């Protein structure tokens, strides 16, 4: 299937005795925005980590860009990894480097740009995510939580990834910043045909941005489809999640 960017088949994950995923099949299509939804501890982040090969599932197969992730080694894996950008839950910025150096890091690692080109691209990326110039020379510790998220997004976007994986991108952002973030992702997607997988709790983000929603509950995929399709599924978790008072307001709104 050429239009599948990431394919998960029969994923089983165990942490000791605890079974987190019990046979998950999921295909991320090229160009879509897919939201991973689930309660706390339902293994959303774990699934995201398995998609990019940071974590190996106990059973099952993961393919990325039609390659078997488990079979790849060395340079092949490295070149595959340049095709996706990851925004970690807490940013994972290098604390000893300034914001500008953090964003420049992958650009310098690619070893194709001159120093002034790197500086220009960094300025562009920072402007793109809405970070002021004054933030560029600061260390991550001097930034607010929302600004850390933006800086981390700028770093994830540095190498023009085809696939963007976002772990709770709008958590901790104020509504204006979340709105900007949604608009930014939408714009990037239009310009670059970006595929996006995001873990989120924010129903506004899901409604405004996502083409499909995958709901994780009890170690399985409880539902997969558009927001309307998913909310129509009769499942206790879905009822609670989307049809609680707050959820219903957002979904209907």
């Amino acid at each position, binding site marked *: 299937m050429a239009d599948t960017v990431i394919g998960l088949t029969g994923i089983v994950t165990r942490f000791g005795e605890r079974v987190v995923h019990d046979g998950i099949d999921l295909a991320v299509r090229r160009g879509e925005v897919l939201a991973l939804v689930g309660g706390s501890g339902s293994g959303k982040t774990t699934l995201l980590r398995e998609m990019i090969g940071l974590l190996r599932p106990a059973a099952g197969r993961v393919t990325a*860009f*039609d*390659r078997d992730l488990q079979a790849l080694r060395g*340079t092949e894996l490295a*070149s595959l990894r*340049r*095709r996706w950008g990851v925004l970690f839950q807490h940013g994972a910025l*290098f*604390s*000893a480097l300034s914001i500008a150096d953090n964003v420049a890091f992958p650009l310098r690692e*690619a*070893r*194709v*740009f001159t120093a*002034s*080109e790197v*500086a*220009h*691209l*960094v*300025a*562009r*990326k920072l*402007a793109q995510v809405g970070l002021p*110039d004054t933030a560029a020379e600061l*260390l*991550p*510790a001097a930034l607010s939580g929302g600004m850390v998220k933006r800086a981390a997004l700028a770093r994830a976007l540095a*190498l*023009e990834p*085809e696939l963007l994986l976002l772990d709770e991108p709008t958590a901790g952002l104020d509504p204006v910043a979340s709105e900007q973030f949604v608009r930014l992702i939408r714009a990037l997607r*239009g*310009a*670059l045909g970006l595929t996006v997988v995001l873990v989120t709790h924010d129903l506004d983000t899901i409604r405004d941005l996502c083409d499909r929603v995958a709901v994780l509950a009890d170690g399985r995929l409880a539902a997969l489809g558009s927001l309307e399709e998913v909310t129509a599924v009769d499942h206790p978790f879905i009822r609670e999640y989307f049809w609680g008072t707050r959820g219903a307001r957002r979904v209907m709104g």
Partner: protein
Amino acid sequence: MTLGTDEEPSPAAVLPWAEGSGWRVIGDWTLAGMAPRLHQLRGELRSVSAAGGWDLSSLTALDSAGALLLVRSWGGVVPRELRAHARHRELLDALAAQGAPPAHRRQWSRIPGVTALGNWVLAGCSRVAEAVALLGQLCWEVARLVHEPRGFPLREWSATLYKAGFLALPITGLVGLLIGVVLSYLSALQLRLFGAEALIVNLVGLATARELGPLLAAILVAGRSGSAMTAELGVMRLTEELDALRVMGVSPFRRLVLPKVLALGLLMPLVAFWASMWSILGGMLIADLELGLGFRQFLAGLPDAIPVGTYWLSLWKSLVFGVVIGVVACFYGLRVAPNTASLGAETTRSVVVSITMVIVLDALFAVAFRDVGWHG
């Protein structure tokens, strides 16, 4: 470098534009598409003149890396005669509007030596002030402890005793034994020359009990536990755990610093004594093997060789060493700035400073108490 291997991107190129005196840009102007021949592309772009028309309408893809190359070759301005898709144009306009950032200029001082010296002195002064503040706080906590002994974090204190003291026994014992062996072996050779074999008891006994035991123990504990304490406090600062303690009304000094310092003060004399014992054992073994001086004879000579004052001296000395190691470790731990590089730097500093201070103090002790603990 291989980027994007499953679909071969069409190579990026600049061609003369047939319709006029302009240039046509074709192919995949993305990082993946350009990477294999980025250098040539730069050259091609440099060789064409920015003036004239540019046709970008047959570009297959353009990302900000590609756009950057084009905009920079145009001198940061989008040419007036430009054919491009609306979204490509948007990207180019955005990059041109961005402009190249001003080169980061480093501030050079006209009198670098003087500035550096000034900064160094100021940093030194502020560090001394911080250290004094820490000591003051510590004294205050000790005073409060005397006043209100129930608030003492006993578990933390005993945990430090166990981790820094009990768990250090094997290594301090081993090092002590080996030092005793080396010392005894080397002096045995010399003493035999003078026929003064019996003096080995005095030499080994005095050297280990008075100097080597306390010093070895202090150096090992500083390297083993001082560094761990600095790192522990540093990470707690990074992760805002110290702030969490403060908002719960628990003083980090009382909860973390005080028990560590007091535990080190208690365990250092014990560990030092332990290390001395093993050194004497090592010395005794060699004295037996090399000089034929039996254990019984050696032990009988010990009380005469090491008066009890020497033991008292080394016990008090070790107590001071322990407190100093604890204070230095906590001081640097609390100074860690919220980044990983600082954590490493402060831990290094903690170990270097505490070992240096221990050796300096040892020299001071040797001079100040030169009349203590001898016979006659």
